[in-house]
């Protein structure tokens, strides 16, 4: 299991579009993915879960991966937060 603290950097927060990108990218990995924020813990591959966090700019959260490709997945997701969810391949 690997985890890291990340900050939402997009000005308008983790709204519909970034949430969609996050779920899409995370779903490409086998590892389980959860996000912890303010005591909530949601499945990072669940679009409704991620959206109900309603994370605004500056919100801090912990992203946790557990599974065979956890390192790779974590790196990619952290990068996504850094790039403000612009980079989708």
């Amino acid at each position: 299991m690997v985890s890291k603290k990340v900050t939402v950097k997009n000005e308008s927060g983790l709204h519909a579009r970034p949430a969609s990108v996050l779920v899409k990218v995370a779903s490409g990995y086998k590892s389980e993915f959860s996000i912890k924020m303010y005591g909530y813990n949601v499945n990072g591959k669940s679009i409704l879960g991620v959206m109900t966090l309603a994370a605004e700019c500056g919100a801090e959260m912990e992203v946790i991966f557990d599974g065979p490709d956890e390192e790779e997945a974590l790196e990619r997701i952290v990068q996504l937060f850094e790039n403000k969810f612009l980079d989708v391949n």
Partner: protein
Amino acid sequence: MKNRQNSIKFLGKPVSKGVGIGPVHLLEYQSSSVRPEKIKESEVDNNLVKFKSACELLIQEYNELKNHAQTQEAQDILEAQIQTLQDPEVNKTVRHKVKNELLKTEYAIFTTYNDYIQLLESSDVDWAKERAIDVVSIRDELVNAVSDKKKSLDLKEGEIVFATDIPPATMVKISRINVAGIVMERGGATSHAVILSQSLGIPCVINVHWKRYQIKNGQIAIVDGLHGDVILNPTEEDDKRYSEIKEKDAQNLERALKWAHKPNQTTCGSQFSLRANVEFLEELPRLYEYGAKGVGLLRTETLLFEAEEFDIDAQVDFYSNVMKAVGEESVVIRLFDAGGDKLLDDADEEANPFLGWRGIRMLLDEELLLRKQLEAIYRVSQDYKNRLKILIPMVTKIEEIIEVNRICEEVKEKLKGEGIEYDESIEVGIMVEVPGIALIADRAAEQTDFFSIGTNDLTQYTLAVDRGNEKISGLFDSFHPAVWKMIKMTKEAADRNNIPLSVCGELASKPEAAALLMGLGISDLSMNAGAIPYVKAVLCNHSLKEFQELADQFWGEPDARKRDKLLQKWKKF
């Protein structure tokens, strides 16, 4: 509201013009109508299969819609709907409720989704609240699909949609069916449904309180999207009148569209330019069809009001999408032209907002906002060299132009420092919409790259007529000689200083005004895309000499009624 011989008339707010006549289609969701029902152990498998195939069916439907979606925004909305249908947590919960709590699939779906809907609706964050409506529509579509009820949307071509409100995803579906009109009980003038109906040319009226009456599917209705009238069970007389209007509209459009792709030149071979005023991405697919050569005025206020689109990235996205849609043509981006009345919820209300804190006045006070917008524009410019221009709204002082130019330089320096490339040659021009700047146009021309005349504001400020005030709406006259004097002075100053001038106001969308402007030597016009074919037909069918004669006669005629008569024959094409 009158009630005569079963015919019911409503008056709503017209938001998308045109006349529609057809049978009513009530678009209502059976929300909150799912009752808790238990199933037997032996029915579990069957219920799980039903759930699975309902999800698959809808995913397939949404995928197909997505493949045909014309804008990035529509694709994003549909993608989110697909992800919702695939949501592992939601699906796990529904299956658990069926398997372990022995709840009927419909009810399991209903309660599972409701938990999320409640969370979204009670959020403090606006975008989360707005998403709730899309989740509600997915919930109801799933429930319908499972219970084999009529397909979620069995809307037919030619029907008139009556709805309380239309969720964005449903609107994307509606937009693929050629409906005759849309009537909404709620709906804001800038809601997604309204924007799409405008860009698709579907007549639409909002704020119609139709739910107070017993209205049934199949009843005949008329929608007049120009005046806001909605008539149910129309009398023969109404039917005849509106059918005639409708037919005439259609003939006119067909005739005008024939000109859309002809070269932009008069009978004497003189060139002119017709571009579109654009605010929303959904309008873009129409530009080509209507023969618009680029965007002469890109309004950016929507970016500012929709919190989602506030950041630089979203702006870059928006501008890039517009650039991609115009092919080789150019786009003039007007900086945020917001008034204090619209900007912020907590903005102090102004006694005279039109004379208040708006346009560049606001932007220079909120400099960060201005810098961000400029940065977004310069970032996009590297890929579209010589095709982007910047337009400053509501300029009244030379110093405002100098200040914006200085900030532009600083933004460029910043980008250079970050190693980001941009187009060095972006032109920065000003809106001429206040008499004060028109009167010193020569000095303004020395500081700026081009002029663009905003005729609505220029009329309002020149004549001291609030265009929103119904009592004096008759005084709002863009053909008033004083307004034309302002336009003429500005054009002469532009010529003396060798800078280009265009007109991007409502006025240019009237064929007779376009002809007059041509007569003044103004051949660069921008207007709502729908008006272009009509204007173009008139300009293509006359010579410069005729336009000049018209302008001379108009200018020399002191009698307003006679001036109006002069223009009459130019109103038709």
